[in-house]
């Protein structure tokens, strides 16, 4: 113990670790230029899925609206343009959403899913409310940056 104190062994050991790190590879990413590859299960912006015929899968059962813990989903049922009863309006307030993924889990029709679009900041508060026309879109891989 005393020997270590006189020889500065503790400080030399610490310094050698930091100096080694000086020449090591970088562990950080230069964010806007470099982007991480995100896993498939990423829970970010919602998406309303379509059937192969191009219709909304949602049957307006309202289960996602009821289970949502911060109550950020609002849906309206009514008569649609084609005369059938069903979903007419659907909106998610991303500003309130906590991205827990319960709405995706409880959906009996697998009509709602989550994408890995994570850049959701806006200049206007009104833009945080995603209405049906912004949620119903199969976002292609290269256009993900545009959806903000």
């Amino acid at each position, binding site marked *: 113990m005393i020997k270590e104190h006189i020889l500065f062994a503790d400080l030399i050991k610490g310094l050698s670790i930091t100096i080694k790190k000086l020449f090591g590879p970088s562990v950080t990413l230069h964010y806007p230029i470099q982007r991480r590859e995100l896993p498939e299960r990423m*829970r970010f912006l919602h998406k309303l899925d379509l059937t192969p015929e191009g219709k909304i899968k949602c049957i307006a059962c309202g289960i996602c609206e009821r*289970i949502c813990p911060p109550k950020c989903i609002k849906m309206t049922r009514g008569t649609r343009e084609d005369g059938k009863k069903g979903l007419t309006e659907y909106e998610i307030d991303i500003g309130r959403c906590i991205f827990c993924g319960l709405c995706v889990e409880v959906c009996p029709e697998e009509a709602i899913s989550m994408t890995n679009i994570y850049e959701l900041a806006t200049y206007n508060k009104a833009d945080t409310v995603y209405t049906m026309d912004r949620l119903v879109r199969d976002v292609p891989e290269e256009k993900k940056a545009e959806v903000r």
Partner: protein
Amino acid sequence: MIGIEETKRVRINMGPQHPATHGVGRFILTLNGEIIEDVKPICGYLHRGLEKLAENMTYQQFMPIVDRLDYVASMNNDLAYCLAIEKLLGMEVPERAEYIRILIAELGRIASHLIWLGTMALDIGAMTPYFYTFRDRETIYDMFEEICGARLMYNYVRMGGVSNDITPKFMEMLKHFLDTFPKLMKESDGLLTKNRIWMSRTKDVGVINYDDAISWGLSGPCLRGSGVNWDLRKNRPYGIYPSLDFDIPYLPEGDVYARYLVRLEEINQSVRILRQCVEKIPSGGDYMNPESPFVRPMKKPKEGIALKDFVLQIRGVKAPAGEVYFGAENPKGELGFYIVSDGAGKPYRMKIRTPSFVHVFALPVIVKGGLIADIVSVISSLDFVFGEVDR
């Protein structure tokens, strides 16, 4: 004129916006020169009323909210909550799910201890370990991202299992982590443990003895740093912990340095548990009890969806009337859920016993008579998070 003997007492507010209070904690210090005469912790700046919220939510709906208790170890909070509900409902968990739960709980423990190590070093004045620990923690968060899709608020554990199966990529990442992490941990260890400045800032500082630690209700590493051999994983075992081989580190000194060494050793023990789990985990099988009422409708065969599934999701799973307490060993200490059920789908009352709340109010006993420079290292060594203190 004020003489040298009769100094004036000064009151100082530490916080609520002080980087070393780990959140929005406020401490009113009464100082006599440099000696601390009294500390009054004040909580409530992050109060969200979680216990009241629980009364108006189904058991399933409250899951994401539990993540917000101790937001650096969300996985462990999820697990503790689910185990409490399972105890209330008397539910079985498949073997594979049990192993997945231990994997994520121990990874969560390592991640939480890494944050503690980095911020404690930063508070005391050593900045370098902060970067090293956050680099290692990042690899753990990448693993969690792979299995559940979130970085901090996981919402992964479910009553009766886990929400998604682990992927082969996760196991690869985990094996790589177990190979590299012990070496990387030696960097922080080499920078701090024997360092003379570190030792003089932590040794014989903030001492709490064996009896005080028990009577003030400390738990977790803070209790074990005072020489009490008490760990809920051994003493009131849950899950598959009894079948795993690990030691409980404890040191009799009761100072900041002892708590530091205990936590470092706990990281090593967690790595040991993880290694055993990776060997023993069954390669196939259910990750969720198929008979659990919490299974989501879309997981069932299409013909099986009935009106009662909708009702179950909206009104909640009816738990038998009664009360249950379950405490789990979290990185910070004992996290307990006391649930009173009146037979409805929502709890009648939920009391959450959080370790940080107890640790904050034991602070006056620990720092009284100490120097003002030491309070920062004591606060760091108790490792509380204000999300848990205020609930």
